[in-house]
């Protein structure tokens, strides 16, 4: 390898890391300000807190890669959680998880149907679904909180394998599967293709409707899984669960370098993006920043990180 090649190689890799340096920078900063931040306990905590967002954001990544958006993830989470708790109180409690997942999948597929069949803008279709499903979650819970202190699947939200909490394990599995799907399958390539140039995909004999249906279905399914995790953790569910989670998920995806126009990005970045959000949440509390300031800082970080990313893209092109 000549020196010139080496230089290019390093440059290329930096490009690939995306916002990872930002994450590392925050970790070092918080660790210096408050050594408690890097305790095993706290790090496990950060991962646990980010698990739900990672799961939702993985599905969101796929939707955004096709050039779409899914605003209904928080509401799907709530519906699935309530359904899971409801079923857990019946004699068929062993069906709680499968039925909750199917609920999420069905809601997602319906989103996909609205977008691909009626050609509705994804923003509008999922906005409508977000509102309707929020209501549905309240209705299913009779307006109160469904509680089950003897929850059959409580392990999902509370137990560990080794030192890894089950929900973190699920999050890792979801990220891993999503990465394989996007980077190592024909379907994944087609997701990028539809987001990158829909017309060209049509000309190449791709059924765009199928791809759209698929990504929304996956996003719904993952939201359903997130609902199961939330319900298990709380031993309860209500219509209030997961309000505004879509925003955290979108923030994670965009922080992770996935283009809002579709076609560019991936779940590796999303993982880093979700971790940045969790590290900020956790770190700002640990160093004692007042709550309102936490909000202000988080917003600024998202904006600045994306500005840096846009600037870097531009330098690359010019």
């Amino acid at each position, binding site marked *: 390898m000549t020196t010139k090649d080496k230089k*290019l190689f390093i*440059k290329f890799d930096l490009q690939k890391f995306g916002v990872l340096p930002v994450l590392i920078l925050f970790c070092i900063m918080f660790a210096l300000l408050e050594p408690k931040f890097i305790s095993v306990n706290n790090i496990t905590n950060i991962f646990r807190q980010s698990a739900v967002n990672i799961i939702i954001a993985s599905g969101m990544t796929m939707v955004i890669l096709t050039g779409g958006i899914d605003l209904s993830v928080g509401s799907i989470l709530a519906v699935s959680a309530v359904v899971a708790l409801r079923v857990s109180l019946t004699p068929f409690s062993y069906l709680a998880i499968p039925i909750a997942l199917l609920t999420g999948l069905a809601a997602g597929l319906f989103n996909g149907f609205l977008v691909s069949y009626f050609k509705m803008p994804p923003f509008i279709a999922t906005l409508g679904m977000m509102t309707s499903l929020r209501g549905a979650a309240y209705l299913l819970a009779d307006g109160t909180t469904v509680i089950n202190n003897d929850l059959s699947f409580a392990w999902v939200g509370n137990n560990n394998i080794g030192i890894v909490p089950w929900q973190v394990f699920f999050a890792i599995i979801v990220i891993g599967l999503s990465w*394989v799907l996007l*980077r*190592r*399958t*024909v*379907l994944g*390539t*087609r997701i*990028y*293709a539809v987001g*990158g*140039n829909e*017309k*060209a*995909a*049509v*000309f*190449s*004999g791709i*059924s765009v409707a199928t791809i759209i249906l698929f990504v929304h279905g996956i996003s719904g399914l993952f939201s359903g899984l997130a609902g199961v995790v939330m319900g298990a953790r709380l031993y309860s569910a209500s219509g209030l669960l997961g309000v505004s989670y879509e925003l955290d998920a979108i923030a994670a995806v965009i922080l992770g370098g996935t283009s809002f126009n579709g*076609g*560019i990005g991936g779940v590796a970045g999303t993982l880093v993006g979700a971790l940045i959000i969790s590290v900020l949440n956790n770190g700002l509390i640990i160093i004692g920043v007042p709550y309102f300031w936490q909000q202000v800082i988080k917003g600024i970080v998202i904006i600045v990180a994306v500005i840096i990313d846009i600037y870097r893209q531009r330098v*690359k092109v*010019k």
Partner: protein
Amino acid sequence: MGVILEVHNVSKTFPGCKALDDVSIHLNEGELLSVVGENGAGKSTLMKILAGVYTSDSGEIVLNGETVKIKIPRDALDLGISLIQQELSVAPNITVAENLFMGREPLKHGFFVDRKKLMDESDKILDMVNAPFRARQYPRNFSIAEQQLMEIAKAVGQNSRILIMDEPTASLSENEMETLFRLIKKLKQQHISIIFISHRLKEVVEISDRVVVLRDGTLVATLDKHEINEKDIVTHMVGRTLSDYYGEANTDVSDEVIYSVHNLADEKFIHDVSFDLRRGEILALTGLVGSGRTEIAQMLFGIDKRRSGDFYKSGKRIKIENPIDAIKNRIGFLSEDRKGSGLFLDMSAADNISFNVMQQISNHGFLGSDSASKFSEQFIKSLRIRLSSPKVKALSLSGGNQQKLLLSRWLSIKPEVLILDEPTRGVDVGAKSEIYKIIFDLVADGKTSIIFISSELPEVIWLASRVLIVRDGTIVGEIKNKNEITQDHVMQYATGVNDPDYTFTENKTLVE
């Protein structure tokens, strides 16, 4: 006539490639200077530096004897340099006048738009460029030529002294081109200087006062008026001679009909289109822009909805309702709009090549990290696609290489019928010659038959074994004998000098 613009020793490097290397040119007042070169030679980069889209790494620009800094497009406009791009930027939802004065509308009381002045001034400018439309019209259904005229009007309205035209004739018909050239002459008389970029050397020879040739980012030749001829330009561009410009035509075509179209029609324009394609044939579908040839081609591939029409392959009726059906029947379609409906610019070259056969090269839907690259190797080699690695983004390749990516994508399905819509649009001379060779090689063994569309008549004459001429949405003429295919003959049908005399005899052995 004095020198208006001088460019001294300009260089520009992009990551991984030196786009311009120490280039110096000058431009005289009222002159038309053509800048020619293969794709990737640096023409566009140079023009974009002049227009403030890019900034140069080194060198200087001198305008009317003064050194100027052009950092953003606004700077260029303020200095009187207007770039008329290939992709036109006309807003269809506001009037022509509002388009012309966008960003510098005449004001009343410092706040309100002075509508009357806006319209009057615009009409004055439109008269100056002989526009057939008026200020109050909406450019909603304007043709490319009319949109281009608006851009020129905009530049004239801003008192630009230098107009840079990037491939202005790429999508114009012969008539529109002549109108444009007349306008250019008029602008020159008003001492406006023009920098003209085109791949069509014939017109470069026709209208240029001077020609500069770029190759690989350096200036290789400057030709004065009396030295300008096609042959020399090509020699300078590619560094070789015209004799190996084209491939070798195949003349023996079998009688076997491989693909047949009956009574094709759409809802409004296309009607009564029927023809046969024979095995190993290169059938040209030609006609003026707007004649309906692209619409017909898209219907053959199941993209445009049709009202009627039956397709037969090797005598058997086939269903083509969408591109998926077409591909299943081993029909390929290379779109005329490379970037709009062809390439996935952000995906790798390898993914672009293997896209149509990904399922086949995968292991039950799963791909290895190198599956696409490995599959693409054969095409990269046989089509001589120049890239540093199969994993580079399609975005980073030159026009000719991008076109070869798309060609590979269609070759990968082993097409029996390949529809090529403007296969050499926007590619340089070298790549053009290579694409011709690929086309000839394809039909040589009779496994692939080709329907191709082109608005470049020399190309039609060179490639086609048979020509069908389209006018007003239907086939009006057929030229069967290779030696009867001449520009005049084709144009007589295309322009309506010859009355339609195309007849189609149905093959009797078709199976429903």
